[in-house]
């Protein structure tokens, strides 16, 4: 009797909670058109996919694209693996971390790359105007903010310090979201900040100084991020993956050669004001994943101990 009642109670509770949910919809084929959801972070890096959608590069390949712009990338890898998104955008280090944890994912196209020019890249370590830190070497022993610990930010910053002759082991990294960094730096909560655009431009406009072009120091023409899918989709629908890759590549090429249109499309999914849009440094959007640079990033990450095992790039890269 008691057990019966307990079971009944559990059913009532579970039922009432389940009633609160809705079914998640999956990408389905309707009249030969694939509904594709892509998990992205609403930042400058993904401007080509928005531009490509506008230009019809996806619809011409029978792909109806929806961007799921979650904040932060944490939800993207699980979202792709659980088939809530068919594709996702993530930085290379995060993808390698997932790969070493045997998460079944596969990169399908290049995402974004460093400009390769020191002082003119879209990410850097910056300090306050009156800081005693002059070069990357001076960062030793200092407090530096990164958006995620044990990820691409601290890896490339360590490399900049190492190259400048400093001791990377003494760096004290703290985690905070990019938007908090300008204030934290101005307040002196951190000595230096590893930031990307548009915060990089904001800090520089307030008098901040760049002390290390970290992506440039890490490797020539570093591939910073990539679009990826689940190994499952790669096997079950190789045609869709191929069409997506083609569309992304066309978008990347178009974006790379039409910076004005990129700056304009930013207004459609970010709230960056016109002045900032006109001045910020755009990254490069090559269609090739620079494998040597990814290998370098993998080696640096392994040296820093952020991977549980060496990443298998053969498996990860297309």
């Amino acid at each position, binding site marked *: 009797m008691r057990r019966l009642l307990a079971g009944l109670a559990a059913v009532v*509770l579970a039922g*009432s909670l389940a009633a609160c949910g809705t079914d*998640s919809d999956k990408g389905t084929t309707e009249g030969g058109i694939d509904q594709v959801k892509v998990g992205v972070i609403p930042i400058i890096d993904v401007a080509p996919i928005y531009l490509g959608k506008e230009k019809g590069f996806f619809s011409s390949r029978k792909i109806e694209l929806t961007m799921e712009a*979650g904040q932060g990338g944490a*939800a993207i890898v699980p979202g792709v693996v659980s088939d809530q998104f068919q594709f996702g955008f993530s930085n290379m280090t995060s993808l390698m971390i997932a790969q070493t944890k045997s998460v079944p994912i596969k990169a399908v196209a290049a995402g974004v790359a460093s400009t390769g020019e020191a002082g003119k890249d879209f990410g850097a370590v910056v300090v306050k105007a009156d800081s005693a830190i002059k070069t990357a070497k001076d960062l030793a022993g200092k407090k530096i903010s990164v958006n995620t610990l044990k990820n691409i930010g601290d890896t490339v910053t360590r490399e900049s310090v190492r190259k400048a002759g400093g001791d990377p082991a003494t760096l004290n990294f703290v985690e905070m979201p990019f938007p908090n960094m300008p204030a934290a730096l101005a307040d002196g909560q951190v000595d230096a900040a590893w930031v990307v655009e548009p915060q990089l431009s904001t800090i520089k406009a307030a008098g901040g100084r760049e002390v290390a072009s970290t992506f440039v120091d890490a490797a020539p023409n570093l591939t910073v991020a990539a679009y990826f899918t689940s190994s499952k989709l790669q096997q079950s629908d190789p045609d869709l993956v191929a069409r997506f890759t083609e569309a992304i590549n066309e978008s990347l090429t178009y974006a790379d050669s039409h910076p004005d249109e990129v700056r304009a499309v930013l207004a459609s999914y970010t709230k960056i*004001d016109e002045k900032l849009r006109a001045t910020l440094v755009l990254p490069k959007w090559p269609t090739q994943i620079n494998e040597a640079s990814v290998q370098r990033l993998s080696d640096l990450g392994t040296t820093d101990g952020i991977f549980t095992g060496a990443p298998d790039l053969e498996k990860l890269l297309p």
Partner: protein
Amino acid sequence: MTTARRDGPARLGNPVLLGIAGPAGLLLLIELAPRIGLVDERYLPPASRIGAALVTEAGTGVFWTALWETLSAWALGLALAVAAGVVAGIVIGSVPVLRALTASTVEFLRPIPSVALIPLAVLLYGTDLGSTLMLVCYAAFWQVLVQVLYGVADVDPVAFETARSFRFSAWARIRYVLWPTALPYVFTGIRLAASVALVLAITAELVIGAPGLGREIAVAQASEAVPTMYALIVVTGVLGVLINLLARTGERRLLAWHQSVRGEVAL
């Protein structure tokens, strides 16, 4: 419980004027603090610039879509939570064995912050409306459930036994004895749940990136659009005030017949 409205604190002046003076003072403070350099205006712009950003924002379709998405997530989540909370509350509350059995479970589940369930919500429902609904429902459900349980426990046993001896069916006992007694508690639950549901709807959008005002705040923040970010925060505050007003007015209107609102001495 809602207290009876008797003569207000007349000597303090017009309550409406006082109610307006509060926000007006706050606006003045926010206008002056950055202007005289108390805070950096890059991080807290003066109220007039926030107002200007609000006007600009209100001129965009994106803003109204986001507002609609937040409100519909709030309303849907609240409705589901209230329905589930009332049904579960009446069932659990009227069966003493069930109540004893679930007491510890309810006390265990209830304090779990909805926000802690975000990873689970994302796994189950992705970054769409579904995950917002789950968080909203979870948080709002307990507010209603607990109030309904109290309401059911408050039923006058004599009245209940009388109904029983008049051979009222189980449904009639719930409809004519239990429900009228529990109703003020239900409304308290709904009023509490309405505020909690809004908080959770905005939180889910902000953290998960589900569509709505919360996500617009996150996008504004990531875009270095500081005045716009504050403008959107102001909107969420106004929503909170409106929802509270709506809940209170609704409670007074719908319970106008009830002794707790009439303000008469009971029995």
